[in-house]
């Protein structure tokens, strides 16, 4: 028996036992994939909203440290590995280079450069190509003129890009529109001040143990705005970040799984090993555990370290979206 089997078998046995007991109530929710994704999506958006209203600073501090690396793995898995983009050497080098550079501190103009090979490599000439390159040129001009403002906008927008990517991954029933619609309603409610009283009652405006404060988040992730609006922009970021993680860690994997039924943890590990290989997978696990362990010692430092590492993934999502637009999905 392998180490992964030895570790995951007891968890699977426990999970099977819980599911057996709860089967009368959970079966209707779990059996059908479409229904399962729908309620998981709605539950994720609603719980992200509630968490944002109760403990936003904890969510902002712990989310990246605990869920950051797994969500990056999912991002790369479903955008690059599963469609086989990494098998195209020209694309791997030309798009991978700028993406890698962003994690070395390169600015947004370099990150955006990954869009060009993504749309040009093995792409027939079409009006869509012209439009995509025009979009890239416009974004690059904006990033060139004001890198700080561009990065702020990109930081907030990329959380919503995940919802768009999820929407485009599979044909969607109309009922699935509830998930993006609820997300937008949540953002509107936050900007209207719906969470302000809840935060005050729950004491969520302050969380000294996280080593972070609203003041710091306002200073680092919002432009110069009226102070109340700036605080709500931080809350909106917190909410959308949680939705972003839910999309990559729950909705996309559930949607993209070849068989419709949920998998055991051992099967999930085997599928990950098939996609990435054992070496890279173990490296991902070590990285995830390393950042989580770092968070135990220095939570703000771990969060910052993760954010440096993750700088590439927003541009990766944008490049793949641009490729889908020009080339069609999964090519």
């Amino acid at each position, binding site marked *: 028996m392998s180490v992964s089997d030895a570790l995951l078998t007891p968890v699977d046995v426990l999970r099977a036992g819980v599911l057996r007991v709860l089967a009368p109530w959970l079966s209707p929710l779990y059996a059908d994939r479409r229904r399962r994704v729908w309620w998981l999506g709605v539950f994720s958006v609603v719980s992200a909203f509630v968490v944002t209203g109760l403990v936003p600073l904890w969510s902002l501090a712990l989310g990246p440290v605990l869920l950051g690396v797994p969500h990056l793995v999912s991002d790369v898995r479903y955008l690059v590995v599963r469609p086989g983009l*990494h098998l195209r050497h020209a694309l791997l080098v030309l798009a991978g280079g700028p993406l890698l550079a962003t994690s070395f501190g390169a600015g947004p103009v370099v990150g955006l450069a990954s869009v060009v090979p993504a749309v040009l490599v093995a792409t027939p000439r079409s009006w869509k190509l012209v439009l995509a390159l025009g979009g890239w040129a416009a974004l690059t001009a904006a990033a060139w003129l004001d890198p700080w403002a561009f990065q702020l906008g990109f930081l907030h927008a990329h959380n919503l890009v995940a919802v768009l990517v999820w929407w485009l991954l599979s044909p969607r029933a109309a009922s699935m529109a509830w998930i993006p619609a609820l997300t937008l309603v949540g953002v509107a409610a936050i900007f209207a001040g719906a969470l302000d009283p809840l935060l*005050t009652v729950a004491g969520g405006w*302050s969380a000294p143990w996280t080593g972070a*404060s609203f003041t710091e988040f306002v*200073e680092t992730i*919002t432009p*110069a705005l009226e102070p109340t609006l700036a605080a709500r922009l931080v809350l909106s970021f917190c909410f959308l970040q949680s939705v972003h993680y839910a999309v990559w860690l729950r909705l996309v994997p559930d949607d993209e799984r070849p068989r419709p039924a949920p998998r055991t943890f051992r099967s999930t590990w085997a599928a990950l090993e098939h996609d990435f290989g054992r070496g890279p997978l173990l490296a991902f696990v070590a990285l995830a555990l390393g950042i989580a362990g770092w968070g135990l010692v220095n939570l703000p430092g771990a969060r910052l370290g993760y954010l440096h590492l993750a700088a590439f993934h927003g541009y990766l999502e944008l490049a793949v979206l641009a490729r889908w637009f020009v080339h069609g999905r999964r090519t």
Partner: protein
Amino acid sequence: MPLLILSLTVAATALADIPPDNSTQCRSASAGAPCTTDDGKPGTCVSQKVGRLDYSEGVPPKSVQVDMLICVPSVSAKSVVPATTPFLASGLVLAVMLGLLVMKVAGRRRVGAA
């Protein structure tokens, strides 16, 4: 939403604070540590009273005076290059991951060819 539109279109009189000048360089430093000021001069991190907005009791925030390390220019201090270690480390981690992925792809190709 109307508040958002109003705030974005009408010039706000009291804008949210941005980090005080010369403060970001000293964020994770201790008093007396060498630093480089916003305009590139060598300096030293010195504790000073600065005005900040305090959101800990909700919105609208209160204006408070707090002690904060500020990079103050000094003729005796040596210039320090801004830290690149976090970026170097994160870039190297990502490069290793990318390398492992490429090796795995190459390995599969070899197996396929054999």
